[in-house]
């Protein structure tokens, strides 16, 4: 498995760059990763990332946008505004989870 080094932290990633070890993640790392995609993490961003981590800890899979809405109570429009373009993929990457596989 390849590794990435960012601001002194080294962590293992898959071939696309998603973290492979849950425990490597921290909110500080998320903040540094976010800067690479032109995002400054607000409390709203962090709330989504925390939910992603909590939910995946129990289900074992990265939540889909639909699940973020039905289980997490997040508004889909807000998620698209917080993470322009590819919200599910960006949130998965920033929260140190595998790329989402669910269709809906």
């Amino acid at each position, binding site marked *: 498995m*390849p590794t*990435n*080094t*960012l601001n002194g932290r080294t962590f293992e*990633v898959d*071939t*696309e*760059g*998603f973290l492979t070890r849950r425990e490597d993640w921290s909110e500080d790392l998320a903040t540094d*990763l976010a*800067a*690479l*995609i*032109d*995002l*400054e*993490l*607000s409390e709203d*961003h962090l709330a989504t990332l925390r939910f992603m981590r909590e939910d995946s800890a129990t289900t074992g899979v990265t939540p889909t*946008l*639909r*699940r973020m*809405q*039905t289980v997490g109570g997040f*508004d*889909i*429009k807000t998620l*698209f*505004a*917080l993470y*322009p*373009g*590819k*919200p*599910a*993929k*960006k949130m998965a*990457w920033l929260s140190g989870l595998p*790329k989402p596989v*669910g*269709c*809906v």
Partner: protein
Amino acid sequence: MSTTTTRTTPPEGFIMPDFGDRGRTPAPQGNGATAAATATQGTGAAAYSGPRKMAFICSKGNLDMAYPALIMGNAALGEGVEVHIFFTFWGLDIINTKTYDNLKFTLSGNTAMHMPDLGRLRPGLEHVSMPQAMGNLPGMTGFATRMMKKQMEEMEIPSIPDFLDLLQASGAHMYACRLTYDMMKMIEADLHPGVEGVISAGDFIDIAEGAQVVFV
């Protein structure tokens, strides 16, 4: 929202997913390349150089024919692709609030109709198609519809009304076909609020410029 201009560049050798943002981020003022790209837009499909677009045409009103475009459209939106959905003929039932929660699935004419659960009665039975005549028995369509809805729910696939809400919130552009809308004597009050308008086929062709078109 909180997009700042303090983008940092990844260190050398840093592996990260492609979020497709490079084409999206507006280039600084006075960038000649961007100006040229904008100028060539609107001069025919060959010259289309905007972001990726997908256009879906929904022409069927069966429950099992409603889902494919909605699922693919939703997936495309999640990948940052611009999505347009044109509902025509029986596909109008998908956006008609009087019918959209009542779409049906029928065995009739579906030769791929076999049930996974039957394998428990006798191994191999799950791959055997049901006799076509069974589809014509009274109540069979209602039974098959309930069964499919249950299976969809188990897969956490939303119902059609919920799905349209989801697509609307995700930014999908949805349209009703003018000709069939008039033919079916539909009224605007019955359209799902996510439908942006009743448009002609020509309008849709204009909108679909540069899009990959999927007909369902």
